[in-house]
């Protein structure tokens, strides 16, 4: 595996092997000194052309736990604002000696494009509406751990609720969950579904209340205020009334069902109930698991295959 651009590039066994590797990374993360020398001497550059706090911090922490050298590159502090092209930016930084670029870009396909201009590994940390593969992997890991589904998601019923059309998380999660065997239902107003959703391996519903009682996992997506500008929604209030998770709605979920969210949450919109009071909420577990999953991805792409067990020197 050279790059991680899209969940599409992974089959079920590749996903499951990454999740098994994540188990080791969780174990390392729980040590008194959560650091191993596995990627010592490797240079991992975060290249964020779009704001992100948690994803960047998560990758940064993951790289440091594996003893990689890290460098951050943000649009505001870069020469991109001086008109430098994406290609020149990549070639310039790559010339300093880079083993992996972690790329976040507002344009779908930008990480794939970058692979043409460098020999370094590219990890997609979110591109436009397209993909966010490490989010999908950490979501899979969280479900696998919380519901004890080590061998796949056969028969599992998952609903993804919210702005599917503009969501890279939805695209990655649909692919990852269905590849592992889950049955996925998308719940959203028709204006927030992608065109040709019929071609996706999912069911579609516009009635959250009807879907809730059968679920093993309820996955909420952030709904953004700017969607009203394009007349995709009448108001956030109406969205919340029809699709928001209230305490009453949460009561319709089976007792074992998980509630997930990729963050950041819009309290009072898609998340009306206090997530702290939802017994099935694993939202903070998702964040914790994000570090371990990203360690696994970095190790899979950059590791020599050597022992993971040693202590950092």
């Amino acid at each position: 595996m050279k790059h991680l651009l899209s969940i599409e590039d992974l089959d079920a066994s590749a996903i499951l092997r990454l999740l098994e590797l994540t188990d080791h990374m969780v174990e390392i993360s729980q040590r008194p000194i959560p650091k191993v020398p596995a990627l010592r001497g490797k240079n991992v550059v975060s290249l964020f052309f779009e704001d992100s706090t948690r994803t960047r911090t998560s990758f940064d922490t993951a790289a440091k736990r594996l003893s990689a050298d890290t460098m951050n590159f943000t649009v505001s502090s870069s020469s991109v604002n001086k008109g430098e092209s994406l290609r020149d930016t990549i070639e310039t930084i790559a010339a300093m000696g880079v083993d992996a670029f972690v790329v976040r870009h507002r344009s779908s396909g930008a990480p794939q494009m970058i692979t043409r201009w460098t020999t370094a590994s590219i990890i997609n940390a979110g591109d436009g509406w397209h993909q966010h593969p490490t989010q999908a992997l950490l979501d899979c890991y969280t479900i696998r751990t919380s519901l004890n589904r080590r061998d796949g998601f056969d028969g599992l019923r998952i609903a993804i609720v919210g702005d599917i059309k503009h969501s890279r998380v939805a695209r990655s999660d649909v692919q990852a969950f269905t590849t592992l065997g889950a049955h996925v239902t998308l719940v959203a107003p028709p204006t927030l579904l992608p065109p040709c959703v019929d071609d996706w391996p999912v069911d579609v519903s516009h009635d959250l209340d009807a879907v809730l009682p059968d679920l093993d996992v309820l996955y909420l997506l952030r709904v953004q205020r700017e969607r009203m500008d394009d007349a995709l929604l009448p108001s956030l209030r109406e969205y919340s009334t029809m699709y928001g998770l209230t305490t009453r709605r949460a009561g319709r979920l089976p007792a074992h069902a998980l509630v997930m969210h990729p963050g950041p949450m819009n309290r009072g919109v898609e998340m009306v109930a206090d997530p702290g009071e939802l017994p099935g909420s694993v939202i903070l577990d998702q964040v914790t698991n994000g570090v371990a999953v990203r360690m696994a991805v970095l190790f899979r792409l950059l590791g020599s295959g050597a022992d993971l067990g040693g202590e950092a020197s």
Partner: protein
Amino acid sequence: MSRLAIRGGTVLDQSGQSRTDVAIEDGRIVDVGATVDGDVTLDASGCIVTPGFVDLHVHLREPGREEAETIETGSRAAALGGFTAIVAMPNTEPAQDSLAVIEFVRAQGRRAGLCDVHPAGCITVNREGAALAPFGELAAAGVRLFTDDGNGVQDPQLMRHALEYAKALDITLAQHCEVASLTKGAVMHEGSCCSGLGLPGWPAIAEELMVHRDIELCRLTGSRVHLLHLSTARSVELVRAAKIDGLPVTAEAAPHHFTLTHELLAGYDPVFKVNPPLRTADDIAAIKAGLADGTIDAIATDHAPHPPEAKEAPLDQAPPGMLGLETALALALTELDMPLADVLAALSWKPAAIAGLADRHGRPVAVGEPANLVVFDPDAEWTVVPAKLASKSRNTPYAGRTLRGKVRHTLLDGVPVVVDGTAQR
């Protein structure tokens, strides 16, 4: 004055096909016959000799974007593609909405001397869709085609008035059919591919609504309307119905819209980004059927050069457009299942009439006619190599593709501007 003989070829024009030599003197055809003599001979054995092609839709980028193309480099690409006349789209900087810019483009075309360059005028000032450009002044100077290409005229009231005003002037208005509010941020065809790729879609209806509107405005005003670069099956149906009703509507299609589909965007390569976008196999079939039955009158390239750095941006930021002049004939011959005479009609005499150039271009190959001719080998196979193209830019989507049909000679007013596939100036 020396006498030029085109020998050994088969002449094909609107009156038919025959094994005929052609003699040219002083810019005109002076003899046609089984064998003619000349001081200079151009070998046409195995070739078709036909009226030079006319491209209704070329972006030459000069003035304003000379890093992408100049009138000279674009004219050279045109001549190598067999075109003796091209209509230069007005989205230059400054736009072609004044006599000064129109005259500049013509002068640069004459200076290059490789093909006739006919600038189109703008419908609205600076193509902004707000105020009418000076049609009368530009028409008096010989401009025959007006368009805001790159932008559709959004305001139906303004378009109605433009068509009414045009009636007094014997000009044709050409529409870029795109309802802008439906294509905000659009990158590629709205359909099965864009959903998975996470790219905003350009829905077919954004084109079809304006095609329908302008057909109805044509019905209302009686003024001629030419529809640029049709890309959808429903657009073809609408034009077919309008023609059955006898409306003065004409239409063109670009080679990429009958050869390439939206699945090509899966690799996020901006070389495949174009406006209107590449569509489905069903749309391609409809465009081909429209060309075959004459619903679509002309093949026009929408030649749109962009420098490499512009096409190295992410897909949503890269400009739309692809090269077309040097590959149009070969794509038509390779991909269209039509009689050769119909292909040549769509490349030559039909667009010549739409552009108002039928006095000089797309003329029969007959004694006394101006010698604007192309000689091409319909069976020659060649591979598209971007670096070998005459255009200043390299953004062809056909790199590496092997096509059939190659221009051997092009004559402009009797002057061989391309000989044996090589530009002479």
